[in-house]
């Protein structure tokens, strides 16, 4: 409870004197103020109690067999005072807490609206027009409203820097809002980013947010966690929040991700969607068995279904599995995949199928070298070159 004793450990926080993560929304300072107020009141009581506790234990320590100095066993006045007195402080805490809470619950008119889909184990932020991206991008100084639902189990969206949290419950919409105050700095130049991206493509690694501390677009970020336990990869269900300085900046970013550019091959874009749209949390591309079947050597092969039949994994089967996943369940897997109906454009689906096909060199398509991929981790495996 003594900040000074623990501050050497506060390595990543902005202020080395803080108990808290960075303060980056209009809620932060209010919450911190109330937190500190309660902490100070608690500390005052705690110190008094500890002084009395250890003080009495030492002062009235007696040898065995001694009698106590006094046997006074009640004093109604004192008891009423210490029962009723602290209650006033509780009322103050309750009042400020409730006020702060109502601010969380009162969503301003005309907020910038985003949709949030949570699933095991990732986030899809819906920017409209089929732009769904795992990173949450917002504008500084503008209230942002999130309309959130879950595809499977209960998740909870938590942005420590904004001091906001709300459960994301399947079967209903939960709302939250915040106004970010501190824009994210752009900390890497485009050349550096291009180099890193090339390096990642070489080793087939996904972007290392923790190691690099900036997004693939070069922005510093705030952490976004899932805080309601949701199974195997609960602790990996993280994403980042980027705060743009202006709306134009944000729109430019959205546009960048809005669709496949004319020059990009479908398979290459499909790989991006694989990373971005949560496929990779359940489907490996190196043959590892995750929650869902691996995509390696999938396209064009016959596969057993849970119903006992078997089916050839052609384009139509893949398309059906994306849009109506529970129609044909692969043997040995649970029917847990949510439907992507209405969430992917036809071109997105086409790109994903092309990507899956590119993972099976034997299948029809621009087959190329077969790089060894056995036993490697998800990151370290080869990917069939499609470009």
């Amino acid at each position: 409870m003594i900040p000074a004793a623990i501050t050497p450990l506060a390595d990543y926080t902005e202020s080395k004197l803080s108990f808290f993560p960075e303060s980056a929304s209009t809620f932060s300072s209010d919450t911190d103020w109330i937190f500190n107020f309660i902490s100070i009141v608690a500390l005052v009581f705690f110190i008094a109690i500890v002084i009395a506790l250890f003080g009495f234990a030492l002062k009235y320590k007696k040898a065995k067999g001694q009698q106590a100095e006094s046997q006074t066993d009640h004093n109604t006045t004192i008891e009423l005072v210490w029962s009723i007195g602290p209650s006033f402080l509780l009322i103050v805490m309750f009042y400020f807490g409730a006020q702060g809470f109502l601010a969380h619950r009162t969503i301003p008119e005309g907020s910038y609206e985003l949709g949030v889909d949570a699933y095991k184990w990732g986030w899809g932020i819906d920017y409209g027009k089929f732009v769904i991206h795992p990173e949450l991008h917002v504008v500084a100084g503008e209230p942002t409203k999130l309309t959130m639902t879950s595809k499977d189990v209960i998740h909870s969206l938590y942005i420590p820097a904004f001091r906001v949290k709300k459960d994301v419950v399947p079967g209903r919409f939960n709302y939250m809002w915040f106004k970010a105050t501190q824009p994210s700095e752009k900390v890497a130049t485009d050349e550096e980013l291009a180099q890193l991206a090339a390096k990642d493509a070489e080793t087939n690694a996904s972007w290392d947010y923790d190691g690099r501390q900036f997004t693939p677009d070069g922005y510093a970020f705030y952490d976004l966690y899932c805080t309601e336990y949701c199974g195997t990869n609960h602790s990996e269900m993280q994403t980042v929040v980027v705060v743009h300085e202006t709306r134009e900046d944000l729109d430019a970013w959205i546009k960048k991700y809005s669709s496949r550019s004319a020059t990009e091959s479908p398979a290459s874009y499909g790989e991006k969607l694989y990373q971005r749209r949560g496929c990779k949390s359940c489907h490996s591309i190196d043959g590892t068995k995750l929650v869902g079947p691996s995509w390696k050597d999938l396209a064009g092969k016959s596969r057993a279904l849970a119903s006992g039949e078997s089916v050839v994994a052609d384009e139509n089967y893949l398309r059906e599995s994306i849009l109506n996943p529970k129609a044909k369940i692969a043997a040995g897997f649970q029917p847990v995949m949510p439907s992507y109906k209405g969430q992917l454009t036809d071109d997105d689906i086409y790109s994903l199928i092309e990507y899956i096909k590119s993972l099976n060199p034997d299948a029809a398509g621009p087959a190329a070298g077969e790089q060894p991929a056995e036993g490697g981790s998800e990151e370290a495996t080869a990917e069939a070159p499609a470009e």
Partner: protein
Amino acid sequence: MSVGSVPAGYEVKDPGYPTPEENYLTNSRGLLTWVFTLDHKRIGVMYLVGVSLAFLVAGLLALGIRLHLFAPDGWLFNNEFFKWLAPDKAPNDIYNQVFTLHGAIMVFLFIIPSIPAALGNFLVPVMLGAKDVAFPRLNLSSFFLWVAGAVFFVMALLASGLDTGWTFYTPYSTTTDTSVIMATFGAFILGFSSIFTGLNFIVTINTMRPPGMTWFRMPLFLWATYSTSIIQVLATPVLGITLLLLIAERTMHIGIFDPEYNGDPVTYQHFFWFYSHPAVYIMILPAFGVISELISVHSHKRIFGYRFIAYSSIAIALLGFLVWGHHMFTAGMGPMTTIIFSALTFTVSVPSAIKVFNWLATMYKGAITLTTPMCYAIAFIFLFTIGGLTGLHLGTLATDMHLHDTYFVVAHFHYVMVGGTLVAFLGAVFHWWPKMFGRMYNELGGQISALIVFLGFNLTFLPQFVLGSRGMPRRYATYDPEFAALHEMSTWGALLLGIGLLVALVVLLASLVNGKKAPANPWGAATLEWACTSPPPFYNFERPPVVGDPYEFGDIQWDGASDRYVKVEPKRESVPSETPAESPAHAGE
């Protein structure tokens, strides 16, 4: 004062030591006399062994958790050894099952039955001055239900594990392919065990008080047990029904909790916490009772504010039913509901605070002996105060938005449950050990264990408050590197805590082998259980005990000659010439 110095007209009463035949441990021999015993003391001892084993298992799982979290990417369960153990499981799955079982075993098999069932069974009738509980057979069956529940938990572990967290939140629990049904059925059975114990105590305390034992002459431990029993009887059935509904949802898709069948998962949370929040008071109220006894006896001073403490136990039991919603501030309840739950939550903190102030006032001007139980009692007040005060941060809505489901919550409830209940349990075991087994333990060893437990505990959980306020979510198998230093501290603390608990265990077990014989009243206490020999005879008392004030220490004197406390009383005439004018301050009307 030695016996020789007893003033004229007084006589010394000391039950002395039991003969081998007349103590409950030895009056009949053989395993079957234990298995089919109806003696509340033997059932209490069997519970003590059972819950201690459960605690050992859950404690080792906790160490596993802490060792795993030593490194950001997970250290322990990523080891080769565990890959061999569970080849087709991800390391995260092993971690998820370990923390689930740690929580479930700790809560259902240890914390809830520890003080009420193990110590309560032993102590309630003796403190009350009764021969046994009201329904001895029901009592024995509650123990075997506990065993059956434990067996189901072990079966769930061996079948396909359990990875839902101890709360079994839907719809995760209705969709995961682990042994949810086996575990929930185990918890369901344990619920009956808990209800039977509570029912038994309520009837015992209501009907079996000997002449003179008025409500306000009952030791505060009995008040605490009584309040606890009320909660057990009223709240546990809700858990039972909820778990049955959960099983029905899983097997028949009845559509109550699972949104896929038009259910509402938050309904489950309401049902679950309607039991489990009062259950928090099943866990802590008996600890309050224990501490009231310990502080008073080892300060040799009347408990301060007896009635306030007694009433506050009842108040906590009743208010505890109204605050379950504070577990769901972020779940999306209506704003007004949320605010009302927050307000109610604050009201329940007042009676807890009253108790702390009363304990301190009891120590004031006392004659404090720093025995092992007193060391644990002091540790309890320190730790419980932190646990209680950090509850304010969580009851306050704005700060709860930030802290809910983070390590701040983990630290808070461990301060209450471990720093509170476990430390009180240890203090109680050390306090009543001589009575239960007739042996004194090594005092220095006990004090050292209390110190190590205290230091280890704080080193484990203080850093977690900081982790939580800095945004580290709970139940994470891996975490961001910026939290690593605090997690390391916490892990070292857990190891130290483990050592402290081991020392306590060794000290207690060693006393059985080479401990000094315990006198009837080693601490100079005035409650009735110290009026019979240690260990007590089969029927507790030779003849109905004379009930006095449980906190009147004036006539308990240290007798240096025989090195023990004795009771000094006015010589009784066969026909008293006059009745004593003053009655004890707490004597009932």
